[in-house]
């Protein structure tokens, strides 16, 4: 994307993002949300996190050497850091540095 397209995209994202935040203040100020909304609210965040993990890896060629092994091992490493040290920053940066090292130093 270039110039005007980027600003349009940013405008759309800004509007939609604000809409997601203001939504309950517009619609549920007097009445309770229906059960299907509560169901989505409760379980959709977990689903979208998994989808986003796969989405960020969509351009990896899993059929070609090294078969996405660098990505998969970095995901496992990040999860391991997070489960053992339980600090967001250490997990995110540790995982990223691990992946950058694999990409930049290993063929």
């Amino acid at each position, binding site marked *: 994307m270039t110039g005007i397209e980027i600003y349009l995209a940013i405008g759309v994202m800004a509007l939609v993002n604000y809409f997601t935040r203001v939504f309950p203040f517009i619609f549920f100020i007097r009445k309770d949300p229906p059960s299907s909304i509560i169901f989505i609210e409760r379980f959709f965040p977990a689903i979208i996190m998994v989808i986003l993990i796969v989405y960020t890896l969509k351009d990896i060629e899993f059929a070609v050497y090294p078969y996405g092994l660098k990505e998969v091992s970095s995901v496992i490493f990040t999860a391991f850091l997070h489960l053992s040290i339980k600090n967001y920053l250490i997990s995110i940066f540790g*995982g990223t540095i691990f*992946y950058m090292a694999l990409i930049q130093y290993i063929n």
Partner: protein
Amino acid sequence: MKYEKELKKAFSISIPVLMGYIVLGFAFGLLLTSFDYPWYLAPIMSIFIYAGALQFVAINFFNAKAGLIDIAIASWFINIRQSFYGLSLLKRFKNSGKLKPFLIFSLTDETYALLTTIKDDETLNKKYYYLFLGLLNQFYWIIGCTSGAVIGSYVDFNTAGLEFSLTALFVVLCIEQYKSLKNIYPFLIGAISSIFALIFIPSDKMLIVSIIIALIMMFFFRKRIEK
């Protein structure tokens, strides 16, 4: 200053967010300029969008030349969780008058977590305390994003692989989701729908197709998920 006490309290509880936003914002700015986008998009995006995951995904949208409708739908689903934060704050924001639109805008994951975790101090003027907390957090985010972008556009880092910071962020959020939910079905549905879409759908349509398949599966298996 009239509201010094409110500002001090807001600052002291926002310190973890300060560290997190500076570092994550820096990674965002660096990633943005590593694709040769101009540095000033970082402050523009952090002022007007102000959403971590969405800003990272926005870089993918720019690269993929995604359509505006696709962007709107994907953005809505990426941040749909925010629509439910407000439900637990309807009463607390009720008397905030003119500040209310900004208080709502400032509701990121972290700001929401602080607001709902830290107990209210009854001696504080709440609406200004909430305002300072929202302003400070967004300020940290703007500083982080902008400094990453500026430094990234002048200093030549080897940024190959830096985009993994986004994957890592989602891995961490996914683990946190599991800890609070203790239910494997949503994760299975997410994995099945996205891997299916990854294999069979062109990559520019993959996100929206995964979301639609996941929603269908979710309602199909609703009884089992909710058991």
